[in-house]
């Protein structure tokens, strides 16, 4: 049973175009059975924040190759990628390095 979490989700490098041009989103994730991890966060983002063209951001379970994910300014590969469990007040940054946004 996970308590509601407050995290800051940021987008850069053009990814913000898919989110109405807003770069920083302060979001409160609702409490749920399983603990929140990046995998769940992505599903939540797709449902609630993503305004258009989901295939340009998410591919299958994970982000599209070419989109970097930084958690508290650290590469998510160091933290377990999709399995990293979110803490309160975390900052998750998605930077798109793709030419096509």
């Amino acid at each position, binding site marked *: 049973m996970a308590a509601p979490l407050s995290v800051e989700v940021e987008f*850069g*490098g*053009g990814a*913000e*175009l*898919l989110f109405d041009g807003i770069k920083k989103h302060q979001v409160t994730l609702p409490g749920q059975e399983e603990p929140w991890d990046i995998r769940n966060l992505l599903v939540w983002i797709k449902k609630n924040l993503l305004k258009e*063209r989901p*295939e*340009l951001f998410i591919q299958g379970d994970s982000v599209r*190759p*070419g989109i*970097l994910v*930084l958690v508290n*300014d650290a*590469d998510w590969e160091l933290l377990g990628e999709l399995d990293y469990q979110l803490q309160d007040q975390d900052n998750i*940054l998605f*930077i*798109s*390095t*793709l*030419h*096509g*946004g």
Partner: protein
Amino acid sequence: MVRVATLTPTPLLRMSPTQTAGAVTLARPCWGQFLETPRVSGKKEGAACGQSPEDRAKTVAEMKLILQTLGFPWHFVALEEVFGLSPSVLRCSAQEPVGAVGTYKVAVDSFLQQQHTLGTERAGGSPSPAQGEEWLSPPGTQESQDPAGPPPAAQTEALSRLFGSVKTLTAKEEFLHTLRTHLILHVARTHGYSKVMTGDSCTRLAIKLMTSLALGRGAFLAWDTGFSDERHGDVVVVRPMRDHTLKEVAFYNRLFAVPSVFTPAIDTKAPEKASVHRLMEGFLLRLQAQFPSTVSTVYRTSEKLVKAPRDGCAAGPRCLLCMCTLDVDAADSATAFGAQTSGFSQTQPPTPRAGAGAPTEAGGAQDRCRGAGPCGREDSRAQVIEQLCYGCRANMKDVPSLDLLPPYILAEAQLRSQRASQEIQEYLVENGAEEMQTAESRAWGHQESGARIA
């Protein structure tokens, strides 16, 4: 797409990861030191992407704010200015000492004067949309760092029409890249810069390498993706960032809070299969996700490419658009390749330098199609096509009408083919004289042998 580079006093280029290929710094030529007083050039390509003037103005304002904090001199150039370029930008000039930078400027100024007088004669009121001559900015504007205002609406319209007529996104991207190169070259030459640094990262160059292979530019990979590109002669294009992957650049920018500006480009939000570039990018990045050594392997391969030794600009004809030495041998009709490229030229003769068999056909065909009308149009299209390398020809297939091209390209094409036909005429005269001599000597020989028999 507007591109920005931020520079520290130590000339380390810091960039936002999306603006990879275009942030340009121009280095003054100097003796002994490689870098001195770099300048940053911002390019405005909003018209090609269909941006509204307000959006473009907003982006320019944002960029100016950042550039002003840099302390380096900077220039703004709108893509519409390609309609005001002189054909001399397409000519490769040999290495010139610093003092001789004036010759290019003189050429440009005299061309502009010519066009200006032609324009004022013809304009008389509303500009006609046919040619680009009436819309040239007065000679002073290109020198100033801050253009007086947005480019003339007619130029913007011409640019949108040009890009609107191109059929595929691949061709659009390639064409945009070509025009951008010409414009940067023009700015560099006008202000006397000998080096242009672009911000291509390792990842971008790996993608560019694979894309060039797919588009038929395999012969020029060493120039397109190598560290230095000297095909323009006096201006050398250098790629100092080619050792750094996009991931490194993105992290650096984030950790050091480098300000950047992002604007949509011609391919923003394009689906994956929209163009060869997008497809190749998706392919390489997906492969990279599973096999992390992909990008660096491709990059190392590009390092091994050696440029064929060429001395200056003298060796062989050059492509009209990309200025690489032509790799097309139109006389080779035995292969399918030859058949395809000769198909482009339709009824036109093969490249004038092809060989002894060509001259008489060349003269005849050109006489046949000299008239105006549909034949004349095909003639001018063939004229341009035969001066392009294979990659550029394949690209031109997607450009239905060459009339919309900026005038400097068409002018240079005409000039080159006129020069070539002049050489053929000289060759014909020489050849004719030789034939007469051999005919005479044969006649003498017959007479003598006839006399002997008799």
